[in-house]
């Protein structure tokens, strides 16, 4: 993945988010916004448990989900009135095979020397293709107004640009902090180390052991999500330990990078192109009228 970096390539890093010790404090959301100067994105009370953030997007790069269930936390004996509260901090998965990166037509999205996926904000022209390409619904275009520091919107000398920011934004895995030898802001702020940062190999190993421990303790529904390099996106750079099916958290159960089917799609396109030409030719058979 990082061959083109040559000697500049670093060990691939990522997140292991262990939701079994997430206390739902949202320090990750706040730390991320403070470090990255992500704008506040709406004072909207949803009534969806304690989640008023709702989803990842251009203005939310860490999102804590809350799911109240009438389920026991651990499967031991008879627990008729059991309650549990799933809490999980969602983030960009920095996929091994990243659809957003693949479809970006300007090259704004690129793979860093750490194996992470980052948008270059001075290149992105807000075409929005990455938005529906992401199988997790992470990246989005920012509709909030431009900051005063942005250059004015000109095309060929004419003031024709838009007032909105217009670019795609998402988690950078704190690329700037990585360059400085630090861990990302969310991992630093997380008080229980639910968000763990480090070399991906190490994290995967740790996660495997963690799952074993939880299984031995009869945790209800414990599973890893995104740790398998053979999955549809080649394994996530930011993977999870969940306590229920992914869709309960708003995550796709079996995500596949769309580009996996692109070779087949180009072939189909070629055939259809041929068919179009043939169709045009065929309509000339039979005289001028």
């Amino acid at each position, binding site marked *: 993945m990082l061959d083109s970096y040559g000697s500049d390539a670093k060990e691939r890093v990522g997140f292991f988010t262990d939701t079994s010790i997430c206390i739902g404090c949202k320090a990750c959301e706040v730390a991320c916004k403070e470090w990255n100067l992500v704008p506040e994105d709406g004072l909207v009370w949803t009534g*969806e448990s304690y989640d008023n953030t709702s989803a990842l997007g251009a203005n939310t790069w860490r999102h804590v989900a809350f799911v109240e269930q009438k389920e026991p936390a651990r499967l031991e004996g008879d627990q008729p009135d059991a309650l549990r509260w799933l809490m999980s901090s969602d983030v960009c998965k920095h996929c091994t095979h990243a659809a957003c990166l693949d479809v970006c*037509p300007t090259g704004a999205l690129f793979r860093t020397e750490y194996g992470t996926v980052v948008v270059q904000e001075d290149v992105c*022209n807000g075409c929005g293709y990455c938005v529906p390409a992401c199988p997790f619904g992470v990246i989005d275009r920012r509709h909030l107004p431009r900051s005063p520091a942005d250059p004015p919107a000109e*095309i060929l000398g004419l003031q024709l640009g838009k007032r909105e920011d217009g670019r795609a934004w998402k988690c950078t895995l704190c690329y700037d902090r990585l360059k400085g030898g630090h861990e990302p802001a969310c991992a630093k702020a997380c008080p229980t180390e639910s968000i763990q940062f480090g070399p991906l190999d190490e994290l995967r190993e740790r996660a495997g052991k963690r799952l074993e421990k939880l299984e031995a303790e009869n945790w209800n529904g414990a*599973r890893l999500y995104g740790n398998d390099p053979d999955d549809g996106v080649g394994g996530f750079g930011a993977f999870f330990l969940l306590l229920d099916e*992914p*869709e309960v958290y708003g995550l796709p159960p079996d995500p596949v990078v769309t580009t996996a089917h692109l070779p087949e*799609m180009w072939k189909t396109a070629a055939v259809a192109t041929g068919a*179009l030409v043939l169709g045009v030719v065929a309509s000339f058979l039979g005289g001028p009228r």
Partner: protein
Amino acid sequence: MSETRSYYGRPVVKEPVWKDEIALYFFTGGLGGASSVLSLVARATGHELLAQRSIQIASAADAVSPPLLIADLGRPERFLNMLRVFKVTSPMSVGSWILAYTSAASSVSAFLNTIGRLPRVAELTRLAAAGSGAPLAIYTSTLISNTAIPVWHEARRELPFLFGSSAAASAGAAAVIAVPPAEAGPARRLAVGGVLVENVLFKLMERRLGMVGEPYSKGQAGTYKKLAIGCTLSGAALLAGPGRRSRLAAVAGGALTLAGEVALRFSVFKAGFQSARDPKYTVEPQRARLSAQPADPRSRTRPVSGDGSM
């Protein structure tokens, strides 16, 4: 099957940020691309007026396409960044180049054709326009298939042919309007043929999509689809019947067909939004796919719960 589980019914994938300009572009791109091809074949078979009108139509469509796309960008002033790279993993990258190339070629060719100068350049550019025009008419289907939107991605085998036949019908219908019925034969046949093929394809696609194709029977996508069927079929009927002799009927038939093609593009476009909005379209097929696999101890979604799921 039990009700799909979701997170408060919220979408899993994000709907596009694109506005209606993009749906319009699907239409103008198809029209422009197929018209270039029509122009080339017409010229090759001696249909001079048809050839000239088609290349003019192509160039007009190709002139409208870029502004439509640029207007939809979040940062329109950076539209040239589309030409920073050429990425085969991005149909939009490939398509940006195709569009740039085709519109340059078709506009030069149409201009020269109209003023009647530099005939060899005019023919070369016509050839070039046709060569890239055919992919231009098709690639937008690849573009939308290459997303996580279920109704688009799962239709990746049908959409290129759907878009192709729609483009053909558009080119044919536009040309029919632009030339007298005596010259319009091939264009007429192209239009009617395109309409028939696309309607059959649409049905086949919907059937094969099953639940994932539901957006086509609901909401805006459903409404546009009905409009498309109505307009294209009635337009084709006019073209095939009275349109053979009456200029008026031909124009009416052509206009109806064109309206129907626009509606068809909008139907597909809007279906994508509806498909993204309801999480079940994303979750159910994936969940079904996982259920169909044998339980693998190393599987990534190994359930420990005793609640019977899976």
